[in-house]
């Protein structure tokens, strides 16, 4: 914006453009611009610096209901990871396993994607690299069966945390969403309360469709946290502001690369800073 001087019409248009380009979306951008104009009308905004500070503040306000760390409860704690195809679920599980293993926890991975070619092999390579065991069945077998076996093992052998990988699926496919619900039901029958955490993995390059994904996945299963991946690219993931506003699901983690250490806690202030870079 150029940091000095009074706020012009062009400045406001530029701000709008930055927000839209960051996938914040029309409705949320409109909401933010109206909040800014209100502040300006009340004389609360002092020049260009003031407007950026006000904007940051308004975005943080929308993100307020969606803050929360990923925390582990008492063992056997169960985390299920869900999301549409290709968002980074399997890789995120590798990163989580790495984090928990580094903390000295006993981790069990569950190859719950029994459908996609080499999905089990992919998770197995990660399990070996991180140095944690994995439960798997034959490709093509029922994913709920793998969940059942894995949770039996988790309880019997005292795993601190069990992480269930699931196949990518479009939220609009009713039968696939039913399969997911069944996996969750089987988990809770085997271990009451399980899955204790259900993480929805969203790709930062996704546009407005992420809102539809968040809505439909959280209708099917109790999504307790969001992971926003591929933030090491140029996409800003601005759609999570709308998701936060509408669904108040905590954004817990971000993916910033393809390696097992490329996982960070979500930091709202850093996220907002990055929107304007």
């Amino acid at each position, binding site marked *: 914006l150029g940091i000095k001087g009074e706020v012009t019409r062009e400045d406001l248009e530029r701000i709008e453009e930055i927000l839209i380009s960051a996938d914040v979306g029309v409705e949320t951008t409109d909401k933010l611009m109206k909040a800014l104009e209100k502040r300006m009308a009340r004389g609360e905004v002092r020049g260009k610096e003031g407007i950026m500070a006000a904007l940051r503040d308004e975005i943080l306000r929308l993100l307020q209901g969606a803050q929360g760390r990923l925390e582990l409860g008492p063992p056997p704690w169960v985390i299920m990871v869900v999301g549409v195809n290709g968002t980074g679920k399997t890789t995120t599980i590798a990163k989580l396993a790495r984090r928990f293993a580094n903390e000295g926890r006993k981790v069990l991975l569950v190859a719950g994607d029994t459908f*996609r*070619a080499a999905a089990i092999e*992919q998770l197995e390579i990660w399990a070996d690299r991180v140095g944690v065991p994995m439960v798997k069945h034959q490709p093509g077998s029922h994913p709920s069966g793998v969940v059942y076996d894995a949770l039996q093992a988790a309880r019997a052998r005292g795993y601190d945390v069990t992480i269930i990988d699931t196949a990518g699926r479009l939220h*609009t496919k009713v039968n696939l969403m039913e399969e997911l619900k069944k996996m969750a039901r089987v988990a809770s029958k085997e271990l009451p309360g399980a899955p204790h955490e259900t993480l929805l993995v969203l790709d930062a390059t996704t*546009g407005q469709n992420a809102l539809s994904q968040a809505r439909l996945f959280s209708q099917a299963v109790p999504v307790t946290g969001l992971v926003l991946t591929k933030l090491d690219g140029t996409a800003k993931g601005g759609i999570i502001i709308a998701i936060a506003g509408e669904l108040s699901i905590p954004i817990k983690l971000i993916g910033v690369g393809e390696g097992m250490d490329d996982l960070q806690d979500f930091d709202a202030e850093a996220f907002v800073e990055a929107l304007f870079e």
Partner: protein
Amino acid sequence: SLSDRIQGILGKFKGKARLTEKEVDATLREIRLALLEADVHIQVVRQFTESLRSRLIGREVTGGLTPTQEVVKVVSEEIQGLLGGSHEGLKFASRPPTGIMMVGLQGSGKTTTAAKLALMLKKQGKWPLLVAADVYRPAAVEQLVTLGKEVGVEVYHGEGDPVEICGRAVEKARKDGMDVVIMDTAGRLHVDELLMVELERIKGLVQPQEILLVADAMTGQEAANVARTFHERLNLTGVVLTKMEGDARGGAALSIKAVTGQPIKFVGVGEKLEQLEPFHPDRMASRILG
């Protein structure tokens, strides 16, 4: 829907003579919103509405249409025109083998689409070879080998870096008289210099007839940036949009076409290997407009 919103501005009456500047601008505002909600890139929306404005001001509402129908007709034609005409298929080499490189961001659907293309070509009586040139992602080679078995297409894989692997694969195809070599590459960020150079080196060595950007239909504003970068570095020859059977509006299609000028050749409409279809600009236009 967009039609309802435009009708709110222009009213329901047929036989209205011409569209005024004021009506056009109010209508363009709705169209702009619809396109942005559909993930069309903000600059592309700007250019589009600008060119639309001159087509609409003073426009006569033709025989039997309501003003809304006239506007929707013009907008839809304009988008279809931008998205490209009739289906553009693959370009084959005058002398085999034809080389096809699959490129794009992580998780966009390259490996699956490579196998889908192999199946399609096989059904057309061609003899394809798949090449597993992703040496980075865990079990990427296994993934393509598994898919290759599923469709009965040979998968070349081996030691060395992706450039060497592609080079040897094309040599093998040439020697054996195979028709098409489909090279699956690792997903990469358009801003990863080393990996973009790797793609340039593969291109330089094998001189493919097709370099296809595989892009996710739900991609947001960055679709334009990503496509432009891949195009500047590699000179794309076409695009495949994946995961199109979902409810993403797919504005990325318009952004990608606008910045690259290259045809969207196919769309992925499912995870099964038969689920690859030719791209239909008219269907895409109404989907984007919502």
